């Protein structure tokens, strides 16, 4: 292996571990190998090119962990507990886009589950992580904050025709795709609905609509496979027809949505802009902005005055399960991400197929960014 091994010395490691543990928690060993089906089901196939795969003797495809969050969540579920604070440390493995960059690097972090007071847990995590960054030499730096549930909230509450809301919602986690769809929605549709789509629009009863699709498939000797029934197909044909016959999204509304989604800057400036723009599409951001003002004040009380804070409405999600506060701490040169984390309340429910609904928040630092070079 041509990569230079990155190690931090024992004294530094002890210092980091002590700081991370200041708000309690138990050190846990996390699995290195995870079933790749679990990882890809949760994170999406976009992660595949960055994963390292292995096969178990019984043929199951496994992958090396790409972060600590997922193995920690799996370990927590297996423990059967309903509340826990895990402290964890170890290598994670992600193929890098640039040639020659080591794909394995150390992360050290905290994962908290089942806290009743979520906000308190968020700040406890942030405080420990920030202090740890300081311990290893962060001076000034840049803190990027975001709200993982904000884009969804904007789409749910904005004054939008339902037909466009339904079209936008599936892309709430990927803003580049969402922006494309908003653009498309403003373009007048030149395709008229097909005869089948027109017929389906006229039928209000779902069963009748499904029957019509079934009849068409029978006559044409077509098969829809096992995953979708004729009602699913009928509903989508109706949706398409509705889009084709609806007024395009107004350019003004599209411009406001696009402006909100691309807001990034000093928190107060962003909150004011979100509030003002939101009002124009009937979203009342008053409570949201107040809550975030308080969060920012609290965060400011925890960090150095020379640490720049930036709020990014649609911070790109490396893993799409983040659904609450998210943060990332960069070194002074603004190039290297030293720490990141956030709230991911839906992950445990997703891993247990809805059996357990336990809140979760976590964060990690990458000490080698400062201590070990690249």
């Amino acid at each position: 292996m041509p990569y230079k091994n990155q190690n931090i010395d024992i004294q530094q490691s002890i210092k980091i571990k002590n700081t991370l543990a200041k708000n309690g928690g138990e050190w846990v060993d996390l699995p290195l190998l995870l079933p790749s089906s679990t990882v890809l089901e949760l994170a999406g196939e976009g992660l595949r090119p960055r994963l390292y795969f292995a096969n178990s003797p019984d043929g199951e495809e496994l992958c090396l962990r790409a972060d600590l969050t997922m193995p920690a969540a799996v370990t927590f579920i297996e423990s059967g507990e309903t509340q826990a604070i895990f402290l964890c440390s170890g290598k994670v493995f992600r193929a890098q886009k640039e040639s020659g960059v080591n794909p394995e690097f150390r992360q050290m972090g905290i994962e908290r589950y089942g806290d009743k007071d979520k906000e308190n847990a968020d700040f406890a995590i942030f405080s420990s992580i920030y202090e740890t960054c300081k311990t290893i030499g962060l001076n000034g730096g840049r803190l990027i904050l975001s709200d993982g549930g904000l884009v969804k909230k904007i789409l749910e509450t904005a004054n939008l025709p339902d037909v466009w809301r339904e079209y936008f919602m599936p892309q709430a986690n990927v803003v580049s795709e969402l922006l494309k769809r908003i653009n498309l929605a403003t373009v007048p549709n030149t395709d008229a609905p097909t005869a089948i789509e027109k017929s389906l629009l006229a039928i209000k009863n779902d069963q009748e609509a499904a029957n019509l699709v079934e009849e068409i498939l029978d006559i044409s000797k077509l098969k829809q496979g096992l995953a979708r029934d004729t009602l699913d197909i009928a509903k989508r044909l109706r949706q398409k027809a509705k889009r084709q016959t609806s007024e395009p999204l107004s350019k003004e509304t599209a411009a406001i949505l696009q402006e909100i989604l691309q807001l990034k800057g000093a928190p107060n400036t962003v909150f004011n802009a979100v509030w003002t723009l939101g009002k124009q599409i009937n979203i009342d951001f008053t409570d949201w902005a107040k809550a975030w003002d308080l969060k920012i004040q609290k965060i400011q009380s925890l960090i150095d005055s020379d640490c720049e804070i930036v709020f990014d409405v649609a911070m790109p999600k490396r893993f799409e399960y983040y659904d609450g506060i998210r943060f990332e701490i960069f070194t002074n040169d603004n190039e290297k991400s030293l720490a990141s984390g956030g709230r991911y309340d839906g992950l445990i429910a997703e891993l247990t197929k809805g059996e357990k609904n336990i809140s979760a928040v976590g964060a990690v630092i990458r000490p080698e960014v400062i201590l070990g070079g690249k």
Partner: protein
Amino acid sequence: MAGDEIIFGLPSKGRLKEQCEAWLVKRGLFLKQTGGERGYAAHFDGEPMVEVRLMSSSEISKSLLAGEMHLGITGEDLIREQSPKSDEQVEFVHKLGFGRADVVVAVPDGWIDVSTMDDLAEVASDIRRTSGKRMRIATKFARLTTEFFEKCGVLDYRIVYSGSATEGAPANGIAEAIVDITTSGATLIANNLKIIDDGLILSSQACLIKSRIATLNPKQSALMNELTRKFG
């Protein structure tokens, strides 16, 4: 790779091997198999310094990308699938006009609401919302699929590896849709599948490919130049 030979990989059997041989004969290179028809080592008549290895197309791709072979004939689809940085590792010297196969996205023909990748993106989201699981795509082209789907904004899917009989996956409940190679589309139709209008991922064919990684000493360089002139 010790010695001064140029290592040349050719498909070891079937129609593709015959087409390769015919293409080479037109350029004055006659294949002689050392162990008879069933042997996997060969050379070109009058070219003792060219060591011909008869291998599977997939192995030829791997060897070229790893720099273990200087030249070879294999499908573009295999090269593109096996490496994200293939243009840095190999040079496509000639497209040979045979061994054509399109890598395409195909869905059940009863999905009359799906004709574009945008439609597929929406269906994938619907499946995830209603079942809690991502739509499954059966394929052996995981890399090409991931890159293409990302470009098309299809997010809510998962790849299920399928080495053979991929066209049967939707009917067997293994996957909802597939990415596979097709020449005439007949097998897809026979399995009640249809190609998505903008679902052509790669139009592949057999190519003469040179490894950029394989090292060449001065003698090998001279021979490579000579061979390249023959290939035109």
